[in-house]
C-alpha cells in the first residue's frame, strides 16, 4: 500500500487527481491517532497531511490563526498560549480512550469537528472554523470562508468540511477564530446529587446570567460519590462574584459544595474532556451521545435498564459518554432505540473493527437526508475515492 505524504497543496492535488483517474481508493489521515474510529473501510493507498505543517498566519489582535492541516494540535495550542490565547472549543484528545500514540493534527480537529466541555457555550470546532482550503475528489484545490470571522459570501462549505471525516476533501489549511485565555477559572462542585437532580442544577446554572463555561455530572461509582461540576472563567473579581451567586442559586439542591481551582480542577476537566472519567478497560465499548439536556437522565436510565452501563454527562446533560460491554452488537440496538425515543444521536467511539463493520457507527440518517448526503458526496468526490464508507456506506 502506498502512503502519500504531499509537501504542499499542489502535490496533494496531483496525488488525488491521479487517484481519481485510476480509481484508487484513498484513506485520509494525519498521524493516525484516530484511525480506529469510524467505519472500517478498505482502501488502496493513503494520503497524510503530516508533511504539511506550520502556522501560515497568526494575528492575535484579530483573534485569528491559519495553520497547515498537518500541524500537531499541540503546536497550535502552544503558539496561541504564547500570546495568551486558546482555541475556544477545547478540543478533546482521543488518545487515552483509543490507546494510540502520535500527535493529533489540527486538520483532524476540523475534519472530525472535535470539541470539548466549553462547546456548551463557546460553540463546537465548526463554530470557530472560519476558513478552509482543501483538495476535492477531482484533485482540485478549493477554498471556502476566509480569515475574517463575519463572512456570508457564498455557500458555507466550511461547515460541510467540518465533521465530514475526510469523505469530501483533503484539508490542506484551516483557519480558526480564537479567544483570549481567561485570567482565572474556578469550578463549583456539588456533591452527592442523583442524575436527574444534578442535570436540573446544571440547567439552572446554564440558564443563569453567570456565564458558565463547563457543566458536567459524574455519577457515583465504586466508592466515589457523585460530583456535579460547574466551571466559571473570567477576571478574578468577576469569578468570585459569580461563584457566590451560583452557590446561592443552587442552595435548594442541598448537599455540600466546594470550589476547585488550578491543577486539581484542570485535571478533572481534562478527564471530562477526554472521557477518561469512564476509567474502563479496552474490553468495553464506548458511545458518545448528544441529546437534549433535559432528556439526558432518562436516556442514561433507559440504557442502564438493558445494559451493564457506566456513564457521565457533559454539556449540562446533553452529552453523555457511555461504556457498555462489547458483547454482541456492543449495545447498538439499545442505543438506537434510545435515540429514537429521546431524540439526538449516538456514535460508537470505541469498539473492535469487526463490531464497527457490523453495526452503524454513526446515527442512521432518514432516507431523504441520506439521499442528500450521497448527492453532496458526489458533488465533492464523484468517483468516491476519498475515505469511502468511513461514515456511512455509499458515502
Amino acid at each position, binding site marked *: 500500500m502506498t502512503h502519500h505524504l504531499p509537501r504542499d497543496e499542489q502535490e496533494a492535488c496531483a496525488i488525488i487527481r491521479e487517484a481519481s483517474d485510476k480509481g484508487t481508493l484513498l484513506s485520509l489521515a494525519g498521524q493516525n491517532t484516530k484511525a480506529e474510529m469510524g467505519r472500517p473501510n478498505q482502501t488502496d493507498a493513503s494520503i497524510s497531511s503530516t508533511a504539511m505543517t506550520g502556522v501560515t498566519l497568526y494575528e492575535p489582535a484579530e483573534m485569528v490563526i491559519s495553520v497547515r492541516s498537518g500541524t500537531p494540535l499541540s503546536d497550535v495550542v502552544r503558539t496561541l498560549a504564547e500570546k495568551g490565547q486558546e482555541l475556544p472549543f477545547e478540543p478533546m484528545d482521543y488518545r487515552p480512550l483509543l490507546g494510540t500514540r502520535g500527535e493529533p493534527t489540527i486538520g483532524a480537529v476540523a475534519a472530525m469537528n472535535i470539541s470539548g466541555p466549553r462547546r456548551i457555550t463557546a460553540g463546537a470546532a465548526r463554530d470557530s472554523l472560519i476558513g478552509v482550503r482543501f483538495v476535492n475528489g477531482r484533485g*482540485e484545490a478549493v477554498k471556502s470562508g476566509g480569515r475574517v470571522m463575519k463572512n456570508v459570501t457564498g455557500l458555507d462549505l466550511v461547515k460541510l468540511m467540518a465533521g465530514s471525516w475526510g469523505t469530501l476533501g483533503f484539508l490542506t489549511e484551516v483557519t480558526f477564530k480564537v479567544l483570549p485565555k481567561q485570567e482565572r477559572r474556578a469550578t463549583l462542585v456539588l456533591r452527592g446529587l442523583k442524575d436527574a437532580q444534578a442535570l436540573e442544577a446544571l440547567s439552572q446554572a446554564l440558564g443563569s446570567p453567570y456565564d458558565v463555561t463547563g457543566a458536567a455530572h459524574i455519577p457515583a461509582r465504586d466508592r466515589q460519590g457523585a460530583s456535579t461540576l460547574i466551571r466559571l472563567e473570567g477576571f478574578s473579581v*468577576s469569578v468570585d462574584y459569580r461563584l457566590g451567586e451560583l452557590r446561592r442559586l443552587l442552595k435548594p439542591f442541598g448537599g455540600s459544595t466546594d470550589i476547585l481551582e488550578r491543577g486539581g480542577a484542570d485535571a478533572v476537566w481534562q478527564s471530562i474532556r477526554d472521557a477518561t472519567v469512564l476509567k474502563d478497560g479496552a474490553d468495553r465499548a464506548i458511545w458518545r451521545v448528544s441529546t437534549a439536556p433535559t432528556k439526558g437522565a432518562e436516556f442514561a436510565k433507559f440504557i442502564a435498564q438493558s445494559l451493564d452501563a457506566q456513564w457521565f454527562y457533559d454539556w449540562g446533560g446533553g452529552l453523555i459518554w457511555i461504556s457498555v460491554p462489547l458483547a454482541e452488537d456492543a449495545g447498538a440496538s439499545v442505543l438506537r432505540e434510545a435515540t429514537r425515543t429521546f431524540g439526538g*444521536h449516538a456514535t460508537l467511539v470505541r469498539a473492535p473493527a469487526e463490531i464497527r463493520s457490523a453495526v452503524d457507527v454513526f446515527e442512521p440518517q432518514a432516507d431523504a437526508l441520506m439521499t442528500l448526503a450521497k448527492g453532496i458526496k458526489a*458533488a465533492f468526490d464523484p468517483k468516491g475515492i476519498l475515505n469511502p464508507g468511513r461514515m456511512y456506506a455509499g458515502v
Partner: protein
Amino acid sequence: MTIAFPKPDEAVLGRRKEIIEGLGRLLPPEALIVSEDERRAFETDGLTAYRRIPLAVALPSTTEEVSAIMRFCHEHGVKVVPRGAGTSLSGGAIPQEDAIVLGVSKMNRVLDVDFAGRTARVQAGITNLGISQAVAHEGFFYAPDPSSQLACTIAGNIAMNSGGAHCLKYGVTTNNLLGVTMVLLDGTVVEIGGEHLDSSGYDLLGLICGSEGQLGVVTEAVVRILRAAEGARPALFGFERVEDAGACVAAIIAAGIIPVALEYMDKPAIQICEAFAHAGYPLDVEAMLIVEVEGSDQEIDDMLRRIVAIAEPFKPKTMKVSQSEAESAAIWKGRKSAFGATGRVADYICMDGTIPTGQLPYVLRRIDEIVKSYGLGVANVFHAGDGNLHPLVMFNTNVPGEMEKAEKAGEDILKLCVEVGGCLTGEHGVGIEKRDLMTCQFNEADLAQQMRVRGVFDPRWLLNPAKVFPLEGRLAA
C-alpha cells in the same frame, strides 16, 4: 442601475393562468395573491432600487402547504423566490417575472419553549424580535440581533446567516441554530438537527445557513435561547487619529477582554448621527469607539475601569463612561440611527464588506480616495471587533448618473475588502447586489464546488435563481 436580471421565460409567462389555477387548488383563496396591485407589494425588498413583479405570491400557513407548492413548481418548472419579511439589503428576496414568491410570513407562531434545555421551536415566519419577546419573561433572549430585527423573520435570518451588533460575543445565526424543518424542491419534508447540539451526518444546518433560499424553504426552526446578562453599559472614546482607535481595539482584545459590542464610527458618521440623535458625541474627533460590556454592576465597573486604563495611552480626546440608563440609551441611539440619519441628509447605498481589523486605517484611507474619485461622500460605521465594515456611500438620486457612480464606488470598495484579505459580505448576503463580484473572491474551482453542492438540491436552478452566482457559467450538479 447596473445589475442584470435573467430574461423571463416566455413559456412560463404564457402558462401563467394555468399555473395560478394549479396553485389555487393547493391553497385557500386568501393565501394566493394574483392581482397586479397586490403583487406589487412584493416587487422588491430592502434593495429598493430594483423591482420585478412576480407571477403570483403564495402565502402558505403550514409545512404541508409549502410542500404542495414546491412539488407543483418542481413538476411544472416554475421558479420559486422564497421570502421572509422582505428586508434583505442585498436583494435576496427580489422576485422575477417568471417566478412565484413563496412567503412564510403567515407561519409566525412559537411552537414550544424549553427554558431548562434553552431552546425554542418556532415557525420560520416569526420575527427575530418575536422570539426574544416570547422568552423575555424568563429573562431569556435570542442572540443574533440584525438591525431589522423588528421586521425580519428567522427564515430570512437563516437564509442570510444574519449577524448583528453583538455577534462578537454571541455569534451569528449559524452558531445559534439547532434544527430545522425544511421543504426540498420536490416537496420532500426533512428534519435536520433537533433540540440537541451538533446534528449527525454532514453539517446540513451549517450549509443551509446563508444559502440564500437556494436549497429549500425552512418552515420551522429550533434555536438556542440564552439567559440575558444582568446588565450592560457602554463607554465612548473619541480619538484624533484613526490609527489610535484601531490600536485601542487591538489593545482591548490583547488584554483578554471580549466586549459584547465594539463599534467604530468615523467623523462624517459621528456628525450625521449627532445631528440626528443628540447623543453627546464629540464632534472634534476623527474616530469614535463605543465599547459595551455586560455583567453585574460591580463586574461592569471593573471591566470599564480596565478598558479606560487600556485606552489612556492612545490619548483619547473624549472619554465617557455611561453613568445611567439614559446615557447608555443616548449613546446607542446615535449608533443605531446611523442608517436612518444618513438617509435624512442624502441617498446612500450601504456596503457590507469585512476586513482584517488591522487593515482599518489603510482601508478607510482608500475608501475616502475611491469615493472622492467619483465625486461622492462617505460615512463609515464598523463592527470593529469582527471587522464588518459598513461604508455608506452618499449620493443624490436626482442627479443623473450619481447612483451608478455610487454603485461603482461600492464595487471598488468591496474589491478592496477582498484585496486586503476580507470578503464581499459580512452579514447582508450576496443576493443580486454582489452576485457579479463573486469572481473577485472566488476562483472558478471554488465557485464550481459551491454550484455543484447547490445542484444537489436544485439541479434546474428553480430556487431563487437570479441570486448569488454570476449568471454566466452556471453549473447544474
